[in-house]
């Protein structure tokens, strides 16, 4: 096995493109190093992208925010502008693992690990974030929801590396929120995750909404019916109930050591309701 620490993205993508097999990108390493503990794991090449200029930066642009692929989650909550703009994304990223994990893990890593239960991914999808991908053929952008294709699988081609997550500049009176359910208060993988991003019109009704769920399907779900349940409402009980039903119905989870199908479907609705209430309150304050 080789460990490389390229200084440029071109070198990094070239290394990944040139690798024979079992090449891995290392940013925070909080998933990769766990996998490396397993006797079955084999790697030929590890490309550490943390030395690449700009990868550790959060940049505010006219269009929004660019979050470099090597920015640890803990740094997101230290950026006041980002917290103000996308509190749901930040709270989701800050729910990944412990303080120790927060010091290392990245939202791009969370995305590329492609766990259906990734905490930051539903929030990014609800926020309509995009991934900026560099590869041997140049750079491209895709919607976050299109990166994971199933458990442990992503749509990146050989040699491609996600450089950054792009978060749009939120519209006025817009806010997001993320909630997940875990059995303990910390340290668990989400049993269900729900993110809601919504905008209010001048009259206080919801003018736009995106609702995304985690851990209830092979990959993150963007639930259109749930958004429709919210749009045009003042988040009255009927809207909340319709939201919860839409989320429960959209969920297609599995039974496993963390939860049952029945449980996940029901709690998806509960969390979506609560996240919507938080987002609604936040949007009203913006």
């Amino acid at each position: 096995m080789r460990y490389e620490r390229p200084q440029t993205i071109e070198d990094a993508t070239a290394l990944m493109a040139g690798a024979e097999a079992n090449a891995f990108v290392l940013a925070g390493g909080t998933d990769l190093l766990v996998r490396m503990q397993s006797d079955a794991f084999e790697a030929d090449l590890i490309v550490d992208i943390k030395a690449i200029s700009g990868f550790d930066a959060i940049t505010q642009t006219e269009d929004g925010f660019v979050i470099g692929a090597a920015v640890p989650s803990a740094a997101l909550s230290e950026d006041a502008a980002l917290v103000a703009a996308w509190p749901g994304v930040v709270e989701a990223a800050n729910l990944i693992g412990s303080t120790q994990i927060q010091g290392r893990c990245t939202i791009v890593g969370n995305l590329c690990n492609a766990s259906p239960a990734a905490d930051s991914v539903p929030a990014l999808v609800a926020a309509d974030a995009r991934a900026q991908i560099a590869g041997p053929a140049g750079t491209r952008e895709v919607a976050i929801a299109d990166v994971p294709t199933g458990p442990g699988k992503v749509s990146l081609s050989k040699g491609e590396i996600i450089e950054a997550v792009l978060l749009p500049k939120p519209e006025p009176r817009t806010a997001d929120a993320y909630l997940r359910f875990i059995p303990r208060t910390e340290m668990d993988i989400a049993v269900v995750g729900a993110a809601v991003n919504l905008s209010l019109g001048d009259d206080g009704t919801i003018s736009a909404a995106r609702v995304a769920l985690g851990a209830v399907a092979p990959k993150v779900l963007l639930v259109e019916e749930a958004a429709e349940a919210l749009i045009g409402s003042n988040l009255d009980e009927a809207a909340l109930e319709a939201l919860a039903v839409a989320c429960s119905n959209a969920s297609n989870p599995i039974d496993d050591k963390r939860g049952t199908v029945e449980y996940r479907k029901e709690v998806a609705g509960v969390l979506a309701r609560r996240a919507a209430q938080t987002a609604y309150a936040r949007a009203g304050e913006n």
Partner: protein
Amino acid sequence: MSFDATFQNKRFNSVGTRPLRPDGIDKVTGRARYGADFNMPGQLVARVLRSPHAHARIKGIDTSKAEAVKGVKAIVTAADMPDLTDGDEALFAILDNCMAREKAMYDGHAVAAVAAIDESSAKAALKLIKVDYEVLPHVVDVDAAMMADAPVLNDTIFTQGVEPAPSKPSNVANRSEFGHGDVDAGFAKADIIVERSYKTEQAHQGYIEPHACVASCNADGTADLWVCTQGHFVYRQNCADLLGLEASKLRVTSSEIGGGFGGKTHVWAEPVALALSRKAGRPVKLIMSREEVFRASGPTSATSIDVKIGATKDGKITAAEATLRYTSGPYPDMWAELGAMTAFAPYDLENVKTVGFEVVVNRPKVAAYRAPSAPMAAFAAESAVDELAKEIGMDPVDFRIANVAKEGTRSSYGPVYGPIGIGPTLDAAKAHPHMSAPLGPNQGRGMACGFWFNFGGQTCTDLNISADGTVTIAVGTVDVGGSRASLSLIVAEELGIEYSDVKAVIADTSTLGYNDMTDGSRGTFSTSMATISAARNAIEVMRQRAAIMWDIPLEHIYWEDGHAKAAGSKHGNRAPLSVKDIAAEAGNTGGPIAGHSELVADGAGVSFATHICDIEVDSETGSSRVVRYTVIQDAGKAVHPAYVEGQYQGGAAQGIGWALNEEYIYGDDGRLQNPGFLDYRIPVCSDLPMIDTQILEIPNPNHPYGVRGVGETSIVPPLAAIANAVSNAVGLRMSHIPLSPPRILAALNAAKT
């Protein structure tokens, strides 16, 4: 035993204070050395190959390719171990568990081990060992294993304790029965009867330090073992018995231990490391991974328990009955029996009957876990007691007080009680402000009692007084929770010297006589007794030395307040001699001054606790949080109260984890699904509130200071206390531990329809 252990109601100077622990600085600076923190020259790294099957016959093991890997120095399988198949049953089980001989009995069962120069060579070799398995049907659930059509794990197991003896083998290894009176007659007198079935899932001790050892066997039959253990003398005996070594030639040194809770009372990897070292001719270091610890060390039993209790309308229990089924892993043991003994121990019952069934299953060999078997039995019994109180319309504390066991009560497991502390813990609970504090929305309060036996056992200590008058106490019970501080206090108390003048060390097996393990809440109880005895023997020596120094008859010298004093008018004007004074002259009065003690510290007595907790339940998600928790327990005499509180708090926290989230989860393939701290969910810091403690001191008549064991009982009440609190919060009786959110939500939904 010449030592008089009778309680003497004396005034204490040191005992009962809270000095800094002597190993504190080492432990906060990273200098303390645990199992994995020791190395030997030329040491090899060991790795163990484990069965991926829950139950499989081992038809053959081919290690030839693995042996060819460069850097591999030894590979062992059961063929390299003595064959104890027809020998002592308990020893066979221990050895077979360390290295499977005929069959792999559970997912994770060791089948081969490699010693190599480094981790990567060992890992490469493991992959090249070819094991030819014939996969057999398996069973992991306790009730399923008792069914007539269950796969039989061991066709030499015929249920013991039933008449007539069965003619067919089964997975029920043993039936045990306890009780007295006539339960049928008792139930006939009852106005109200509660009858319910309960289940608890398998929990692990969850010590943070994985098992680790360094073994070094020499060609001349001598060997050294550095290991984290709760009992290095027991490990020495086990390893010697299993490998055919001479016990006195095997020197075992206990490292600092990173938690045990019963799980380090049993050898797992140590005989394997010794066998590898013997074969390789080099030292071998073996550290189990966290995954191996969960799959292949010794968790506690999973259980299925039926309880029936009847009472009159005025609150007197007329009869109590329980049937308890406990898994023991693949080898017969006595875990159900312990559950059957402890279930109703807090109560004064005219008619009581408990029956235990010991059930073998394809899970790891069960080991002791803090008051082993008692928490599950208490969960079932105390849940039923609570339900019965509610049906009668009595306060749960009052109902328990009305039926509580006291001195003279015949216990449910047989003997009549001496002075015991259950009544006072209930009185203290009744008076505790927690009991009357208002509850918030969605909150429920629960309480429960718990009982555990304490042990004494074989104990040996050496107390050496240096020329400057400072003292070393060498003990053979491993310090798992601060006992060196407690024992230093005891020495200071007996000799009348400063705590800071005492250093307590844990001696290895070659420098001290045999000691039983630190288990059964015996560490401080028994070693304090031996330490008091050793100190008194040293005082006797110092009286003799004072007689020589003063040149007066021994009988004119008495010991008081840390000094030799001359008695009577003839010599009484002499200035008393301190320990330092006498020690300074030791060279000229007969040589080094020491006190030794070898004794059996029986008479530990039994231990009781009452816990109170408040739980808040989120009825939409089934999530529950402990918002307040109080432990009330009898310590006899708290030697170092801070570490007594620590035992109470730690036991409660472990019980809370077990009650709410911890469980072994097996797939249909019989493989453990959650062998890690990510999904085997022990409580984290943010899960718990502060845990309040109240130490009661009802002296143990069989200890000079009145000390009782305090280590284990605190894990007994929490399962029931939490289940009672959750049941009160949601208005539904919860009968399956852990009370995980999916279980609570499912119960709430079922109640709606």
